[in-house]
């Protein structure tokens, strides 16, 4: 891989804050996060549930907007984008992997994968080629015609991973990708995620509560507690 841009700051958040109004109470999901992620870095965000991990991921993915502070990805301040611009950013620049896979149950594995290409407007030969490439990368070519209900949890998560990378996004956001899987399967998925990161040079931000898993694949680990970054460490390579 060309590593000319390695080390360059890809994501930069400054005093990133997100409050929710729940009834009459204010919930401080994120409280002044300053975080830099380098291009092609694999960052793991650790934290217990309710620590603000998912909110951070939503903000990085342009699904949510900050209450205050800034979040810049690849030089673009997401807070300044309008709803449609954020849609375009998600469509072309981001891939999501969720804990519950979130595949469309009525579509086959291959159709689920090419769904992202549908909204991008990629069709014909190129669509088929990209989908086939993504499904090959996760090793499920033989299961391409199966529906999610016919696939195991691990297989479903691999389909979800293929869907997240089919359009070659610069940023891959994974929200507890192994949370629903047994240990052996989780290890497989994590290995696949790591390989994808290495092969495609994608910047990855993975949220998890499993420190051991994170340490195995991440370049760096940060920990969130009550909406704040509490410590940061370099993980073992």
């Amino acid at each position, binding site marked *: 891989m060309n590593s000319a841009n390695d080390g360059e700051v890809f994501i930069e958040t400054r005093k990133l804050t997100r409050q929710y109004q729940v009834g009459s109470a204010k919930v401080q999901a994120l409280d002044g996060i300053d975080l830099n992620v380098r291009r092609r870095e694999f960052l793991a965000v650790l934290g217990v549930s309710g620590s603000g991990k*998912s909110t951070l991921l*939503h903000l990085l*993915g342009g*699904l*949510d907007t900050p209450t205050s502070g800034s979040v810049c990805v690849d030089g673009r301040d997401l807070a300044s984008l309008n*709803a*449609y611009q954020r*849609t*375009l950013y*998600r*469509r*072309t620049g981001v*891939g*999501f992997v*969720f*804990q*519950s896979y*979130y*595949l*469309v149950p*009525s*579509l086959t594995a291959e159709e689920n994968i090419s*769904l*992202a290409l*549908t*909204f*991008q*407007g990629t*069709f014909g030969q190129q669509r088929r080629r990209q989908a086939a490439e993504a499904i090959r990368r996760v090793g499920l070519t033989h299961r391409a015609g199966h529906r999610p209900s016919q696939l195991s949890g691990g297989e479903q998560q691999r389909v979800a991973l293929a*869907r*997240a990378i089919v359009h070659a996004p610069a940023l891959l956001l994974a*929200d*507890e990708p192994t949370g629903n899987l047994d240990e052996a399967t989780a290890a497989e998925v994590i290995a696949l995620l790591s390989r994808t990161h290495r092969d495609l040079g994608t910047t990855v931000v993975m949220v998890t509560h499993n420190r051991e898993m994170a340490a195995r694949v991440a370049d760096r680990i940060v920990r969130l507690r009550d909406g704040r970054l509490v410590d940061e460490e370099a993980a073992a390579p």
Partner: protein
Amino acid sequence: MRILRIVQLALEGLRRTPLRVALTWLGVTIASGALVSMVAFALGIQRSAETPFRALGLVNHIQVKPEEKDEGKNPDAAVLDDDALRRIEALPGVVVAYPDFRVSDVKLTCGQQTKKVMALGLPRQISLFEMAQEADLVGDYFTPGEAPEAILSKRLAAELGFESPDDAVGAKVALEASGLSPEQEATFAFQRKRFTVTVVGIYSIPHPMPGPISRAVLLPVDLMKQIPGIRLAPALERLKAGGSATAAGYEKATVRVEHYRDLQRVEKAVKEMGFRTRTVLSRLDKMRAFFVFIDVLLAAVGTVALVVAGLGIINTLLMSVLERYQEIGIYKAIGASDGDLAVLFLTEAGVIGLLGGLGGLALGRSVSWLLEIGVNTYARSQGVATDLQVFAFPLWLLVAAVAFSAVISVLAGVYPAIRAARVDPIRALRRE
């Protein structure tokens, strides 16, 4: 292309809850079928009422008369003569303009038989008229040119001693007429003329038209002009008004237009020439106003049904939005815009509406077909001979019904589409 894929996705969505979608579709189908058959019924009875007029070509007729003379006794009033008829004939849309001749005491002789009958003048182009196409004719209509020809009613031919209509065609018949004709400014002379005419055709009148026409002879207008006494009445009128008897025109004339759409324009032009006009259409218009009322009433009932079906669509799609809440969140997370989701749900609504409209056509057509069979069976048991066409399905109705159903359905899809577009992906994707 992109939109096609989203449409494809919408179809995929519909396949997921087949029973619910089918029930919704059935609602639209029944509503649209009701609308179609009700409007078809209104159109059908309107057509049934107008058909006799149309068949006789009366809707394409303008009756022309000179200006009333006793109002001001104007000797300068426009004269309805051959020159005026030529000018009327030159108007665009006019097929023919000819003087109306009707003489009630023409003597026809064939061998030993002599009958006093009514003679009607018709232009030689009569074969082009709808009336001619409807009438039952043995032989031919008039030939172009000036040949003295006649067409007899079937009853008259029998009275003259012909055994069958085929025997009569080609026979020569003597025709005698007498009357006063204007000679000079205020002088009339008695004339008696005999013609030998060739019978070219025998007509029989369809059952619902009784009267003298069932026992008459039809003569070409050019021959009628030579009948003595034919100009007496208008010449007298002209004389009373202070004009010259020989300068009198015709009492009345008939103008035929190509299409009834031309009628108003031609009628206006004829009026501007200084003549009085009358059309069957002006009387039909009153009847039409009534039918428009019926049309609107029935269409309104059908529309209410379709609106109710539209509520069904709203319900179905709102359910779908709720059920697919998470899926909508996924779509958004992987790059679907609010507009894409609106298109997705509007398409689902539109497809239900379109298929419902088509189903409605099939349903409406079959139901009305069955009803028509029932009506006709009953009518025959009551001794009505003709096939009654109770429903009319013009092409525009078919197209409009499908389009209307689709439009109502898409409108019904607007609210669910907005709901889908507004789904917050974060809430939709919140971990279970």
